[in-house]
């Protein structure tokens, strides 16, 4: 059911996150948090010839933000930095496969913000 924020897959990624932790020698490291709820996400990337060869996230917060981060790490493996820079809101929503209201959207988009700030070498992704 596509309007269910807590469909099995999302809960599963939350309870058993993939790619959670840290890389030995990341090329890119990026961090941000959502002031309204305290969600935090750090993303680390290993990049060879402009291609993501390894990725990890760390953080804490709600199931939406953390499951999204975990899913996103899976998605970007093998992607070029250029492809990553083109990721947008729709990409995330499609990946999650759920509808999401304006407040929780912030949770879902936090990992993307962190990732894109990293991909562009920015301190913080402008809202």
């Amino acid at each position, binding site marked *: 059911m596509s309007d269910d924020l807590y469909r099995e897959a999302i809960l599963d990624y939350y309870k058993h996150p993939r790619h959670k932790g840290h890389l030995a020698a990341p090329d890119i490291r990026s961090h941000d948090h959502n*002031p*309204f709820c305290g969600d935090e996400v750090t993303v680390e990337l290993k990049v060879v010839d402009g291609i993501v060869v390894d990725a990890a996230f760390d953080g804490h917060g709600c199931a939406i933000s953390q499951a999204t981060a975990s899913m996103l790490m899976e998605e970007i493996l093998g992607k070029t930095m250029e492809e990553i820079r083109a990721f947008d809101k729709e990409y995330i929503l499609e990946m999650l496969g759920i509808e999401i*209201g*304006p*407040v*929780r959207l912030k949770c879902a988009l936090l990992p993307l913000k962190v990732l894109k700030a990293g991909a562009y070498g920015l301190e913080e992704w*402008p*809202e």
Partner: protein
Amino acid sequence: METMGPMRIAENLLSDQTAALRQDFPILGRVLPQGQPLVYLDNAASSQKPAAVLQAMETYYRQYNANVHRGVHTLSEEATTAFEAARAKVARFIHAPTPRQIIFTRGATESINLVAYSWGRANLGPGDEVLITAMEHHANIVPWQILQEQLGFTLRHVPITPTGTLDLSQLEKVLTERTRLFCFVHVSNVVGTVNPVQQLVTAARAVGARVLIDAAQSVPHMPVDVQALDADFLVFSSHKMCGPTGIGVLYGKRELLESMPPFLGGGDMIREVTLQGSRWNTIPYKFEAGTPAIAEAIGLGAAVDYLTQVGMEWVHAHERALTAYAYARMAEVEGLQILGPGPEARGGLVAFTLKDVHPHDIAAILDRSGVAVRAGHHCAQPLHTELGVQASARASFYLYNTVEEVDALVAALHKTRQLFAGQKG
């Protein structure tokens, strides 16, 4: 225009559409205690509200009332969506590049004070100058006086001519390299003068000054495009444009708003608070501390929808025609003196004096005929002082006013004349 008699003007008024519009405003059916139908000509003070605006607020309160932004539950999500949709509507209405440049305040007055406290503190000091005009509303005078005391800059003003237009021959003297901010009213709430924004902005740019435009009497009455005007800041109030009380807008250029320190502190305007210090949120939230006026924002959004549907070009044309008619008819009243420029170059209002009758008495006597006009200095005491009058009476029009209402005004003015006939002494 000069050669067009009152009757010709009246014919030009699209009275069919007005009759239909009047149905949208429940209050216009009111019969006053004195037994007269209401003839509401005090729109420059506050306009009436169409049912659609009241309905939008009712629906919020009856269906999805909740605090915004921080809520996860359905009501709060709905309220947040409606609140932010209202911001986007307002942005479109004045052609702001992005909704985040629309900051909700209590009204034009708070908007100007916000700029004074925030931008002013960060940018003004001894040696700097702020320029206003002699025709400003108190809202665009007093905040600068208060700030001047604290920061020690110099406050100067553009004088006016006896007909109530800016004396632009003096502009060079008062707009100088030291001028950091030029604050002026778009349309005067007393003399009705429509100021030459483009010329003023160009002059300000030439000396590197920012401009703040008080659009409290223009945004409700004519199409306004903040980008075409090249306004740095522009302010207005909801209650004068078919919207509810308790809310208004500050528009600002994005880089300006982003560089300004916050004004009020509290919830929603922060990113992070510790007992040692805080980091600010992005615009517009940085300037919206605490629970905002939620129902009011939604109501203002509905007002903007309403005005857009009617069409601001139509509103403007209707008021121009009505004002021209009123100007001509009122000029016939013995001893009546209209303040400000001729009808071809004014907003939809006519302020006037009547020989030997104090404006308060005019308003009180018109009220007995059901005609609501305002009397006093209309929060523009310096302007009255410059024009050499203590106070004035003012009839101000909006989209729902009719030729018949102007006729009722003129008839009541003649009655007033009679009542006070006989030399004072």
